[in-house]
């Protein structure tokens, strides 16, 4: 290849690289913001979903006909009230990772985080 052709192709190569980099970064931004607003807390009783709350909106909610109460703040969720003997569910504190859950055994109730990019299969 003569040097003038080499220079043109080099310029085109650089443009291509720039375009792809922008594409990559752009997609990154789009997907990140989509995921954050997509995160939610799923309330399940006995394996069946009964309610779903977005983690993007702060709030306090009565769930399962009032046997339990959850609080959502800053993208995390915790159990603040529960009609059960040992309140182990309340002691679990805040959770925010995908697949993390708070369980109130006597009420057969779990609150599971879904839909965030912070994901682990199990959190112990």
């Amino acid at each position, binding site marked *: 290849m003569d040097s003038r052709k*080499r220079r043109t*192709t080099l310029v*085109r*190569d650089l443009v291509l*690289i720039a375009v*792809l980099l922008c594409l*990559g970064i752009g997609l990154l931004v789009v997907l990140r913001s989509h995921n954050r607003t997509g995160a939610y807390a799923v309330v399940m009783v006995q394996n069946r979903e009964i309610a779903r709350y977005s983690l993007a909106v702060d709030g306090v909610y009565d769930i399962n006909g009032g046997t339990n109460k959850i609080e959502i703040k800053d993208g995390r969720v915790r159990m603040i009230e529960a009609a059960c003997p040992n309140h182990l569910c309340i002691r679990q504190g805040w959770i925010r990772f995908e697949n993390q859950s708070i369980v109130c055994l006597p009420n057969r109730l779990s609150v599971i985080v879904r839909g965030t*990019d912070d994901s682990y299969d199990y959190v112990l």
Partner: protein
Amino acid sequence: METRKVVHMGMLIALAMVLSFIESQIPAFIAVPGIKLGLANIAVVFALYSLGFREALGVSLIRVLFSAILFGSVLSGLYSAAGAILSLLGMALLKKSGFFGTVGVSVSGAVLHNLGQIGIACFILRTQALVYYLPFLILSAVVAGIVIGIIAAVLVERLGGDEYGRRAEK
């Protein structure tokens, strides 16, 4: 096929496999199934520029087959094959068009390789959610493609020359 070409291809296949193996020893830094730098593509790009499309295809597919047998599994072989075919076809077209230089062709090849892998994974796992990994794969492909393209270009200049181009011109 002349003996010289067969030997040439054999060497490149072996080179590709060694590079693939070295790459597999590097711990995966992102939990994306099958994400690879694609070091083996150095051999493929070099084959493309020094021997030709058909020979590069041979090197690529045989490398995928043997690597899958030795180091991987049917599934990883499938991912690899999809990526390798898409990547090579794209590279051959772009090279023929003369629009981009070796680096540009290599970068395109790397990006297409990853797109192919994600595409096939989406299809096999029946989920579109893997799309989430696209940005990371594109960015890493660009970086890998640049490195591979430069290395291959240097090798072609020093060793192979553009025999394909010369043959086509005749």
